[in-house]
């Protein structure tokens, strides 16, 4: 590990982090435009052409707002809480494999911040820490609505972590590794000649469970019980204003893109184009760096499709009731996750190749 390696890792970390943070303004704009489209109104159209500068205006407004700390709050935890939810959201992206490798400065650079051998568990573990920001934020605000929102949100997040974990167990079984990178590499090529060799065709039920749980994990509609404007004012961030509120917001959208990335990597072949192997693409374009670029674009477009799905569902489905939400997790998704693992195990045993 020499200085060049460290510099390259730092550069990768900064570029990927900034790229993921850029998801936030884009998502804000897309979300508002899609909402307007669905509700038959123009949406943001004043700031810049087509309202494209609206997110910038929002950000500037957040920065110049007063940031009062209400009385009777626990000042330390109140200030720390937004960052406790932003930090895990920033850290979790280290494990996502965005593309294979590029050759720069005569070195092979993997387009992934850290190639851990347990990156899948890393994502699950760091992702489960986001709950602290919400719990501490709600508790330190000294507000009944915040506290109820925080408790609800935390119960929801912990309940849906289980199906999320069980869904990934299926993927681990199929690929026999924890490394997200190796999983993507194994998804190259075609399955049976007519399907892309993607995880969803091995684990359809697992994907469904993962998709539903990811909505709840990121506190999105139809599972946005923590925020339920009509019941709880704004949930755990009622007392937050200015950039602290925006920080919760940023964390939410970054988690969203992480979840979309996880689905892409686990079930939709990561950086692979469908039906075409990497080797074929490499033969056509003839350069490793160009291939890497194509892979990055493929990955980003797959993530974008999932993000759009999130937006679409948010504005078309009604909200669950809290007991229905927990009911869904404990009586449907967790048993389904267990059945998925059992059925996959039995099928894998029955269809095992000759030893």
């Amino acid at each position, binding site marked *: 590990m020499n200085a060049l390696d460290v510099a390259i890792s730092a550069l990768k970390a900064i570029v990927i982090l900034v790229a993921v943070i850029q998801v936030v303004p884009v998502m804000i704009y897309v979300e508002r435009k899609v909402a307007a489209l669905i509700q038959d109104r123009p949406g943001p159209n004043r700031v810049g052409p087509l309202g494209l500068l609206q997110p910038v205006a929002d950000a500037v407004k957040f920065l110049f707002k007063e940031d009062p700390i209400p009385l009777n709050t626990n000042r330390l935890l109140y200030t720390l809480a937004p960052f406790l939810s932003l930090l895990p959201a920033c850290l979790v992206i280290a494990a996502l494999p965005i593309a294979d490798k590029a050759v720069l400065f005569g070195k092979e650079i993997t387009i992934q911040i850290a190639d851990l051998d347990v990156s899948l*568990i890393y994502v699950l573990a760091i992702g489960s820490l986001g*709950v602290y920001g919400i*719990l*501490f934020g709600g*508790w330190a605000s000294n507000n009944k609505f915040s506290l109820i929102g925080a*408790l609800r949100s935390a119960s929801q997040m912990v309940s849906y*972590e289980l199906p999320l974990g069980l869904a990934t167990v299926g993927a681990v079984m199929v690929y026999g590794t924890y490394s997200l990178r190796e999983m993507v590499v194994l998804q190259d090529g075609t399955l049976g000649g007519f399907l892309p060799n993607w995880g969803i065709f091995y684990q359809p039920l697992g994907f469904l469970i993962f998709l539903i749980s990811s909505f709840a994990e990121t506190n999105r509609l139809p599972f946005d019980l923590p925020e339920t404007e009509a019941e709880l004012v704004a949930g755990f961030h009622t007392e937050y204003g200015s950039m602290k509120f925006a920080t919760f917001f940023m964390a939410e959208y970054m988690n969203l893109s992480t979840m979309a990335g996880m689905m892409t990597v686990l079930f939709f072949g990561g950086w692979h184009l469908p039906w075409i192997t990497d080797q074929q693409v490499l033969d056509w374009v003839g350069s490793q760096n160009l291939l890497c670029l194509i892979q990055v674009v493929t990955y980003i477009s797959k993530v974008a499709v999932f993000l759009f799905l999130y937006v679409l569902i948010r504005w078309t489905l009604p909200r669950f009731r809290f007991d229905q939400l927990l009911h869904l997790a404990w009586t449907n998704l967790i048993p389904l996750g267990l059945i998925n693992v059992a059925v996959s195990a039995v099928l894998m045993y029955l269809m095992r190749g000759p030893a």
Partner: protein
Amino acid sequence: MKEMIFALFSIITLLTGAGVVISRNVIYSAFNLVLCFFGLASLYLLWGATFISMVQILIYAGAIVVLFVFVVMLLNFEHSSERSQNFWIILGSGIGSWVLSLFLLRVLSNTLGASPYQSAAPTNLRTVSKLLFTQYLWPFEVLTIFMLALIIGIYLLGRPESEGTQS
């Protein structure tokens, strides 16, 4: 270099561990406990035990301390200020744990620290998993039955008040 980082994380672990013990407010204790588990997880990482390190974060920081924080929030701790313990008890416990720690450190250095045995191959996670499900299968299944008993016990302990009067 690696040893320096190890020392740094050791000190972080110890400081936050001390924070758990001396914090007046329970929620600060819980917060320090999370940081302490993080420090321990990084120590495991530096030893090369990646899986255990991640499980440490997943279960300890992600579930056990969440449970602690939940209970702190469920109970009303606004007015329960903890009186400090009798001075003689503090003194006695302090000396007692100090002496015991010195003794343990001595024992550990004499047994583990002195042994020059160093394996060539690092512990492989696949070997560990296979052993857990073959050679150590029965302890593992006993643990499962233990967990089952635990679930029933938890229900009996934590059921809502209205049902508690029936039995």
